[in-house]
């Protein structure tokens, strides 16, 4: 494994071989290309296999696992797209993701503002309390959470998923936003205060607009976390009317266990929103993950 090779690196002059420098470099990096390509194949195969299998009938799938479908069966896909249950799940996944994101980012931004820009007794204790939440596995609290939600009457209610998800999303969001808020110079705040800005006015009119990239990042993290959550919606929603996509996928797999091709088609369609979102928000997502890991 060599370090980043600079164009026109020093190694050229020291080698007497007859090849030109770019050609030699290309030759030398050949094995690297092969390795990367092989990993790429392993990564793509399951996804591609699912897409292609969705176009087969289950009989074709067992007779001809590798080959292209003949004939191509589109009904697996079109049937799902025509079913109201799929669109309903897409709707509730979206609603829950948006609700979770607004709540997490809103509450965390307010708290991060106080924890970043005020000095008050107990501030560090409070911050530590929140950061301890970083290492609460969701699964630890799931059982008492379920009992609590039952007591509050929040079962089969989207709030029963939104509120706990927002609460568990707080620590990471708070840590990232606090780090960002602290980097905004104090002079700006003094200037705003002299102009008669209240603390909330400064937060709302100066800090939040400046923090837009950071807000984008934490929002994307919250959306992805909510979108993929399985355990909580599985427990909270006993009625299909609020099922989210992951719950739907699992139920669909159980229901059509014999019709594997249809399950594959369902999986592929279920993947599309997440992959599409990733394509659009790649920068924010990766920025958030690396910021969370280095600052958290």
């Amino acid at each position: 494994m060599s370090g980043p090779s600079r164009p026109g690196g020093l190694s050229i002059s020291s080698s007497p071989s007859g090849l030109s420098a770019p050609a030699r470099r290309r030759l030398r990096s050949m094995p690297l290309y092969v390795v990367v390509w092989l990993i790429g194949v392993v990564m793509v195969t399951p996804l591609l296999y699912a897409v292609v299998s969705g176009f087969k009938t289950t009989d074709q799938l067992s007779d001809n696992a590798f080959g292209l479908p003949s004939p191509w069966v589109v009904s697996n896909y079109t049937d799902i797209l025509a079913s109201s249950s799929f669109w309903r799940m897409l709707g509730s996944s979206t609603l829950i993701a948006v609700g979770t994101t607004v709540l997490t980012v809103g509450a965390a931004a307010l708290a991060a503002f106080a924890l970043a820009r005020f000095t008050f007794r107990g501030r560090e204790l409070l911050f530590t309390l929140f950061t301890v939440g970083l290492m609460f596995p969701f699964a630890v609290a799931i059982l008492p959470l379920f009992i609590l939600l039952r007591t509050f009457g929040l079962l089969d209610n989207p709030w029963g998923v939104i509120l706990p998800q927002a609460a568990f999303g707080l620590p990471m969001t708070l840590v990232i936003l606090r780090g960002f808020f602290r980097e905004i110079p104090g002079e700006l705040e003094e200037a705003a205060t002299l102009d008669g800005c209240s603390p909330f006015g400064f937060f709302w009119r100066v800090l939040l607009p400046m923090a837009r990239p950071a807000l984008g990042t934490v929002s994307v993290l919250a959306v992805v976390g909510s979108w993929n959550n399985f355990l909580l919606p599985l427990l909270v929603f006993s009625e299909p009317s609020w099922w989210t996509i992951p719950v739907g996928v699992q139920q669909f797999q159980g229901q059509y266990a014999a019709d594997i091709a249809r399950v594959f088609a369902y999986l592929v369609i279920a993947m599309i929103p997440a992959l599409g979102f990733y394509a659009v928000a790649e920068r924010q997502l990766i920025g958030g993950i690396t910021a969370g890991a280095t600052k958290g």
Partner: protein
Amino acid sequence: MNTTSTAVPAAQPAPAEDAPSAAENRRPLARRVRDWLTAFGFTVPALVLFGLFVLLPIGYALYVSFFNWGGFGAPSNFVGADNYVRLLGDPVFLGDLWRGLLLVLASVGLQLPFALAVAVLLNQKLRGRAFYRMLFFAPYVLSEVITGVPFSMIFAPDDGLADKVLGAIGLDGLGGLWFADQDWALPTLFLVMMWKYFGFHMMLYLAGLQGIPAELHEAARLDGAGPWHRFRHITLPLLGPTIRMSVFLSVIGAIQLFDLVWVVTQGGPDHHSETMAVTLFQFGFKRYQIGYASAISIAMFLISLVFALLYQRYVLRRDTEGALTSMRATR
């Protein structure tokens, strides 16, 4: 951190860098109380949410774990520490710990080095590297359920894709029952985890690699250091904080692993791929032994907490940005 003592009493919300006590004591009490209320007011929504849905459940689990309770009505039948005693003698729970340890060792020993190697590879000027980065990270974005279901079909015994591929290249002997085999269930699960998560760690390492100044490599090259020496003595040490963080995340991830296992094997065959979270789910939501399941919750919580504290104390301490120590270190 510099202590810019803003003695100007007008600067109402003092800059965060100030040590609270010094500047604070000079202000009149009424103002201090008002400031405190303002600051505290901002944290109220987060505190309510966090207290109600994170702290309260964990406190409640602790309480319930001392009862032998079926989950309906008020907790009854106080049994003291019996649930915990039972836990320590439960072969399934002890097995969970052992399997968790194996997964952690496999992650740290195989997955992370692999992710690091790929990150170093994709940090070079390769054509299409942006595409490969995006592709390798993509599985992380998919829900565990959506990942788990196709893999349970790919590793279907005897006629799944995995067996057919192995058959086609003449390695029939390697294939077999995969998730259905007691000895192979956990390794197969690990393969799926690697497929799903290595891209995440790769991204962390890539971000870390970008923070290493190219001049260092240049200088080392001038001094005649080969690729391996540069990796060993420049890349690896400077990537230290990132690596320590990614080890931490991967251990916490292994402790709470649930979705993937539940969808693919439900912990089977005969508990051979079961994790703590799955055991908890089985007792809590299938057998309604809420007291016992709560004891498992608390055990998981304590394991995470003790690990996190020790890790922060002894491993992350030198990385000043550690979450729990950051403030004390900068003051």
